């Protein structure tokens, strides 16, 4: 927070800078969702484009599917990370800082495990990447999902690490719930992260259905 407010600022200016900063976290989070939507939409477009064109009847010969056990596990772990973040935020709003931290740590572990499995799944796919349209888009989906889960894990981990640092720095009984500028910024970040993770849950559900169930 030290770099967003000048020491020479008047109280009104400090208030203005803080509001602008928190607003930036809010609108930045929403804009990031917009950006990510277009990335995922490109993948979905590719999926449906190749599926409908079905060149050489090679969209999905023999209805071959990626390993569903991996798919369910990765999807469940991603969903668990998101649910933990949502649950944690609800506890944080009621003053349960340690419960929030516990929930987010669970989310970090779940997302790291999901990340590992998503990479490991490459060794278990029962098709050559270029054998069909489905196979190609599945590999593309896997790469983008690795990126998505990495972002989820990174955001969760850095937020909980920040909470530990802030608790030490700010002191007092409930530092993360105080009206200190750093604590307000932290809570705005938690809200933005949780909102993004909600989007990830929705997108993961749609993509999981496309690649494993349809």
């Amino acid at each position, binding site marked *: 927070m030290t770099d967003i407010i000048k020491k020479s600022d008047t109280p009104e200016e400090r208030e203005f800078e803080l509001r*602008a900063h928190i607003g930036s976290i809010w609108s930045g989070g929403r804009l990031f969702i917009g*950006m990510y939507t277009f990335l995922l939409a490109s993948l979905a477009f590719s999926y449906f*484009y190749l599926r409908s064109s079905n060149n050489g009847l090679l969209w999905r010969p023999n209805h071959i599917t990626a390993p569903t056990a991996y798919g369910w596990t990765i999807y469940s772990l991603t969903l668990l990370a998101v649910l933990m973040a949502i649950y944690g935020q609800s506890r944080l709003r009621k003053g349960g800082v340690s419960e929030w931290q516990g929930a987010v740590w669970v989310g970090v572990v779940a997302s790291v495990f999901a990340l590992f499995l998503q990479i490991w799944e490459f060794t278990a796919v029962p098709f050559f*990447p270029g*054998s069909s349209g489905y196979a190609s888009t599945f590999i593309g989906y896997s790469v983008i999902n690795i990126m998505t889960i990495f972002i989820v894990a990174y955001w969760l981990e850095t937020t909980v690490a920040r909470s530990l640092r802030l608790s030490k720095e700010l002191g007092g009984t409930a530092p993360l719930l105080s009206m200190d500028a750093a604590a307000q910024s932290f809570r705005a970040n938690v809200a933005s992260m949780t909102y993004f993770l909600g989007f990830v849950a929705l997108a993961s559900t749609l993509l999981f259905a496309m690649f494993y169930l349809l």
Partner: protein
Amino acid sequence: MTISAERPVDVEASVPPANVEASKGRAGDWLSQHIGTAIICGFLGYILGHWLGNYIGNTYGNIANSGQNSIAVTLALLFMVIGWLLGIGALNYPLAKMIGRQPKGEVEYTGWSRYFRYNLDHKVVGIQYVVAVLGFFFTGGLLAMAIRTELLNPTVHVFAADTYIKIVSEHGTIMMMMASSVVVGPLGNYFVPLMIGSRRMAFPRIEAFSLWTFVAGYFVIFSALFFGGFPTGWTGYAPLQTQAGPGMISYLFGFAVISVGMMTAGFNLAVTIINYRAPGMTWSRVPVFVWSMIATAALLTLASPVLFAAGTFGILDRTAQTAFYVAEHGGSSYLWENLFWFFGHPEVYIMALPGFGIVGEIIPVFCRKPLFAYRIAAAGMIGVSLLSFFVWQHHIFQSGIDPDMRPLFMLTTELISIPTGFIFLVGMGTLYKARIRYEVPMLFCMAVYFNFLLGGVSGVFLSDVPVNVTVHGGFFVLSHFHYTIMGGLIFAFFGGLYFWLPKMTGRTTNKKLGLWHFWTMFVFFNLTFFPMFVIGLLGQPRRVFTYAKNLQGLNDFSSVSAFCLGASFLIFVANLMWSQFIAPEKSPSNPWDSLGLEWQTATPIPAYNFERIPVIMTDPYHYSEVGAPVLADFGNAPPVHAASAATDSTDPDQ
């Protein structure tokens, strides 16, 4: 609004933030992170990636007749970019965050060395962007000279056919990527915070990241030349893409890297404009340049991810052997075309809108009139931005589109000319009956209107399917987009540079050299590209190194003009060297008598832009208005009345 116009007087002295340490050059600074360490780390990353790629894929991804392995090339470029970002210091903060730390002791360099480092000051980043885009422009320009040299004669060749197409491809790609950031990067980053009364960008680290990613992307695209180039032109169409040599990986990976730079730049600008507008800076008072920036930022943020995805799929085709763009294996080459142009047409407006913004900002200053129909200009920019997502299929009228869909996309393309026309008419309305001061920046703006008229009208022709089918893939199209992009954006960029350089550097540019630059650039630009409309209508195709003998006269005329056009940029470089380094002359703080907020702060601009956050009272276009309202309250500085700068002065030093 949180800040009232009535200010407390007892403010503390200005000091830098607690975690920022000031430095004018300490012993041992050269050991810290700067562009030298970035180059070294990038080089080491390249070697490591290449070795690793060969180790992993020496029996898997060999590219025919190249002696290269696609996995080695991809990993080399990936590790080079990561090394570059590590070396410059872009990853310090993200890594420190993982262990819950703030970056310790970020040094705020104040000397020349700050321009060679990962700097968080938007003004420094703006200057760094200027140098970067001029570097891009110089490289792309040299390649253009090579193209025109080859086209001097249809039968005597300087280059082989495949070398020629690779030069054309590299020229197009470098120029398009340069043009996507030529205004947003330098002028957007530098002036948007100043114009909205902000002391900073919303996310300064993301801003710096966008710059250094953009530069890394340049190196990646340029590396294609060392891998034998790529033969697809800047559009990278499959199936040629999948058949090309390792240079194609540089193209695909370079696009992916630059798209990250574009996304982050747009993201940061949009968030800054939304949240950091000074109190009183309502949407109806936002300068028109800022409107153009937010419209462009929306496009950058939403269209670039599609380019990133398209590039990633292309790289997967070449490394993981997927078949996104290979029809024989269930993919489709048309998929690339759709993804590419879904990004590619908004990209056209990513390049056009900032030019309109600059022109809209400059002409009221030299007309001494308010901007005509300000709200329509803003609405036009937003309209163009929205509609640009619905026109991409006009690029594939002849390839990959159901013919029944053509009328729809013809209609949407023609529709977009309506908001574009609004923006044009706003300029005409401002010029109408104005007592114009023909300073160098104003001349460039007038040229933008002239050039864009030709480029825009030929664009309306091209949107019609019958015309499009007739002239597609020829020099007519080439001339059209050079008129819109170079004639519009690049002229506006130079107008903006001449206009704002005195504020950026505190030094005035040489007017005589500026006039020479303008007239030579304007005349030879038109002499170069206008004949291409005719050449195109006579049937000369693009990207082919030979042509019908009867077109040699026109081609020679165009080539000689192009050489002169190239020389005109040397006048700009000479002006820059002369006025900034050899014989610098201090510029008045507001040489053009502009009402823009950016001109109301001190020169050189303080680290935090404004000593007190200003409270905005009105928009900055009340030129020559009797009884114009107070522009803004600057706290402990005297208020600036809109009327106080509303003189009809013709002497910029007054």
